[in-house]
């Protein structure tokens, strides 16, 4: 089976940010995303215990360039004031050329 290596970017954020993050994804070139409801805590940090509410986990398969832009956006817009975690991995995607 031919697969294409892509970046999977995962963003965990307070639910109140969902709409804005999806706008960012669209603007920066992501071709799709998947959301699951989550709950979590940053056990030693301050933030998460203060703003209690649901979290969302947003995953998107994107090209390395889009991944880079997404992480930059996270750092620029959200890290200062919000409870947001972002990370990326390389995954092998079937029919992956659709997404890059």
């Amino acid at each position, binding site marked *: 089976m031919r697969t294409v290596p892509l970046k999977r970017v995962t963003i965990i954020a307070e639910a*109140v940010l969902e709409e804005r993050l999806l706008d960012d994804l669209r603007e920066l070139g992501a071709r799709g995303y998947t959301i699951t409801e989550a709950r979590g805590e940053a056990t030693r940090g301050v933030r998460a215990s*203060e*703003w*209690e509410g*649901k979290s969302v986990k947003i995953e998107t398969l994107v090209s390395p360039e889009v991944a880079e832009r997404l992480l930059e956006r996270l750092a620029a817009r959200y890290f200062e*004031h919000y409870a947001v975690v972002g990370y990326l991995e390389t995954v092998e995607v079937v029919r992956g050329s659709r997404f890059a």
Partner: protein
Amino acid sequence: MDALELARANLLSPMVLAFALGLAATLLKSDLKLPDALYDALSVYLLLAIGLKGGAELSVTPLRALLGPALATLALGVGIPLWCYAILRRLGRFGVADAAALAAHYGSVSAVTFIACLGFLDKAGVAYEGFMPALVALLEAPAIVVALGLARLAVPREGGWGEVLHELLTGKSIVLLAGGLLIGWVSGKPGVAAVAPLFVDLFKGALVLFLLEMGLITARRFRDLARVGPFLLAFAVVLPVLHGLLGVVLGRVAGLSLGGATVLAVLAASSSYIAAPAAVRIALPEANPSLYLTASLAVTFPFNLALGLPLYYQLARAVYGG
């Protein structure tokens, strides 16, 4: 019933006791929790129900009877955040963002405190104007707009008002309240009578379940009480009482009945824990949520529920010479 008797009856009502049960369950680290969907469903139900009932009343009320009370409500919605902000900045030495965030909360309104007040008055046999739910819808947004405006005056920021205003005016609680009012108003008393077994008869029972969940949530906030500091603790009790008194006086001036003035007092005294936190989190992210959530939810809400309701009613009786 005299004052003490009423206070006692309120504290021992199933509704306040259910709230206490929720508190106790969390403090005892019980695994009791209500499904999120039940909480969401109950809040949709309660908001729609008060809208429907209020709307059916509106359909038999001359609209000009609303004018005075509506102006009084708007005055509260504009005034409260102004002086709250000033007090918090000057006396409390809070930063711009935190002061504005708190001002937004105390100027807006808590629908569940309002609902509990109706239950209290019904039980005490005190009549009130049927259109009061319309005032809740009216009071929800203005204070938040005023408070965010104050923050922007102090520290100009980019980004327009569009998104914030849109989110406020199309927020779930306003849509349900205003929608319920419209439905009740258009379909009238017979229309609402057809759905009364759900939306009227079950109301108090649903409130008991809702307050049980509120108790569970509130107790989780208690651990942050220490961070809130003595000034804010005092603010969260004293300001509501002053707002309650102001509400009674304005209610009297606006021509409300004794019961109606009590309700207006409760609207003024209550602080938001749904609309304001969501709006503030987006528009003032640098404000510290543990301050405004804890003050509003863990101090003012229980205070109003347990002690405020009979107190504001006594104030109204004093002012009305009743």
